[in-house]
């Protein structure tokens, strides 16, 4: 046993797959301990907040110690950040209309653009072909650009509860800084929020956990059914074999995914729990395990050690369990690993079609994909809503297939390089 384990862990492919899988499992176990929020809690009002560190603005302005830092390029960065792409394009449009050659304008270079703008812009100038409304727009644009360059303090006012008047309570100079560590409320959203305003990372970890459980249950059900049917039909043979193989062949020709869709649909949205779906996936995917186990058993059942066990008076049950099963155990473990990964994929496939588990209780990787698709995250370029999910699915199945290949190489020495 120890020798076998050592051989297995000497296989590079298995080890890589094992560590990826172990890392995923550890994340799934440890993350909820660090961030105990409910995964489906809606924290953001609005959809698809991008990833980043969210500092509470109220806390940052009031109550947090404030520092004055004079940093050379703070001004430039501020203007650069505030001058939107639309504004830059509008400025370019006016400058070109006023006669500046287009080639001389670089809208990426904020400082040069502003210099040209202030040198050329004249609110009184009436350009040919420009309507009044357009002219007023450019005048307003000029005003807002002037505002951007303003270095005045911002006045913070609050209503006086007695007189009802607004009173100045504080001013905020451009050189005021707060230390993020001292702001009481900072929330890191490494993967932003999804369409419902939920933290994608927390949701993703919970979804990975549920999906692994679904895969495990589906794989267990499929392997168990396939194993029992394969053992019985392979060992007993005769009409029992004929009946079981007839059923197996029926399931082979019906595409299991179509069957899965039909069963899932007929169960109904309200009754579809995650583990019901897992069981249904298991019930539709045992076929290949059964066939493979059967052929292995047939090659084993006439071996001498089985004959010896018969001659020792052992029952069929004992022979199947003690003389056949241990010999195919390595194969069954490999089949089980593959069934887990295909179970996860099947759940994702079903959920994308909207036939997965009902949406109110638990997230799954497939459901996250489904939500991202319905709310058009892919069209809106909100990559954080679906890309990490794809990555999680890919990593799980990749690691499992890698482990499977590694085991295959250990158990079938002919496959070793």
């Amino acid at each position, binding site marked *: 046993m120890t020798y076998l384990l050592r051989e297995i862990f000497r296989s590079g492919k298995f080890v890589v797959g094992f560590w990826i899988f172990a890392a995923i499992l550890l994340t799934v176990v440890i993350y909820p301990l660090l961030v105990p929020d409910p995964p489906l809690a809606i924290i953001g009002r609005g959809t698809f907040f991008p990833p980043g560190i969210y500092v509470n603005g109220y806390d940052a302005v009031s109550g947090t110690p404030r520092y004055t830092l004079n940093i050379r390029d703070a001004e430039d960065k501020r203007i650069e950040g505030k001058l939107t792409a639309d504004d830059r394009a509008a400025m370019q449009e006016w400058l070109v209309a006023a006669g500046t050659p287009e080639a001389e304008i670089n809208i990426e270079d904020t400082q040069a653009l502003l210099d040209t703008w202030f040198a050329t812009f004249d609110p009184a100038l009436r350009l040919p072909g420009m309507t009044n409304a357009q002219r007023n727009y450019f005048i307003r644009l000029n005003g807002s650009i002037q505002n951007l360059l303003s270095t005045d303090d911002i006045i913070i006012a609050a209503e006086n509860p007695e007189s009802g008047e607004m009173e100045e309570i504080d001013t905020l100079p451009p050189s005021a800084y707060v230390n993020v560590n001292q702001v009481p409320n900072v929330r890191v959203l490494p993967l932003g929020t999804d369409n419902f305003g939920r933290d994608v990372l927390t949701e993703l970890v919970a979804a990975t956990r549920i999906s692994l459980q679904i895969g495990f249950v589906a794989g267990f059900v499929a392997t168990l059914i396939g194993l029992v049917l394969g053992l019985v039909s392979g060992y007993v043979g005769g009409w029992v074999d004929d009946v079981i193989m007839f059923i197996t062949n029926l399931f082979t020709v019906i595409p299991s995914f179509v069957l899965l869709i039909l069963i899932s649909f007929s169960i109904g949205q309200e009754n579809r729990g995650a583990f019901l779906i897992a069981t249904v996936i298991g019930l539709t995917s045992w076929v290949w395990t059964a066939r493979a186990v059967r052929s292995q058993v047939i090659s084993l059942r006439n071996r001498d050690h089985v004959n*010896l066990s018969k*001659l020792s008076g052992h029952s069929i049950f004992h022979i199947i369990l003690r003389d056949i099963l241990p010999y195919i155990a390595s194969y069954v473990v490999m089949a089980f690993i593959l069934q887990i990964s295909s179970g996860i994929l099947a759940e994702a496939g079903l959920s994308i079609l909207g036939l997965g588990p009902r949406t109110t209780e638990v997230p799954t990787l497939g459901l996250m994909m489904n939500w991202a698709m319905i709310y058009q995250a892919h069209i809106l370029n909100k990559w954080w809503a679906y890309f990490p999910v794809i990555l999680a699915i890919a990593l799980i199945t990749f690691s499992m297939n890698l482990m499977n290949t590694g085991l295959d190489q250990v158990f079938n020495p002919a496959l070793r390089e």
Partner: protein
Amino acid sequence: MNNNKQEIYLSARNVTKIFGMGNTRTVAVDDVNLNLRKGEVISIVGESGSGKTTLAKILLGLINETEGEIYFQGEKRKIRTQGQKREYWRNIQAIFQDPFSSFNIFNKIDSVLLDCINMRGGRRLPKAEKVAMMTEACSFVNLKFEELTNKYPFELSGGQQQRLMIARVFLLKPKILVADEPTSMIDACSRATILDMLMQLRDEEGMTVIFITHDIGLAYYVSDNVYIMEHGRFVEGGPAEDVIIHPQHDYTKRLLNDVPKIYEEWDLSTV
């Protein structure tokens, strides 16, 4: 030796075994008749593929005959239920050709021997008594039980494993032993030991032995009656001296010629 008054233990009447159907139909055993009397050793001799092992498995009840009947102690053999099979296998046991594949690699030697004690109704015996029985069986085949306990069969050499098989038979004390080429996979020195032990089983335990071999010289050395098998049929049979000293059938003569003889030129042209 060949005494008709002796009780007939096992007889096969018109036993035929056919594998496959249609184009793949193979007649492995063809209309074989066989009588086995108490205490005798018979040999079934033939080349590879002649159906010796299939016949042995039919006699052992491991595969079913296609046609014909097997009579055990004068009655038609009944091995339909598990209980009947168990009962039958208390009376007939086997030693297989390849010792390396005869044992379940996941079971320790102790459990192999304990199975035999259990089968003979010794399940409730005190542990010390079981150990004594296993030690006795091992010493019969020149093995030391203390060294074998907690070991796996594959940790032993081929000859040792074959001796362990004989220790099984010693514990089970069946009436009939089917030895299916017990010496063909082990070296010449171990072969003599194994044969000696088989003869000892016959002499001391009164076992009836069906010895299956491709080596006609060996058959002459150990058996009372010899049957020559070709393509599933018995072409010749009778007392060992008659068959081997005065062979009638061409196939028997060929088999005899295939045995290399020291001090004589070996005529390879007929091989």
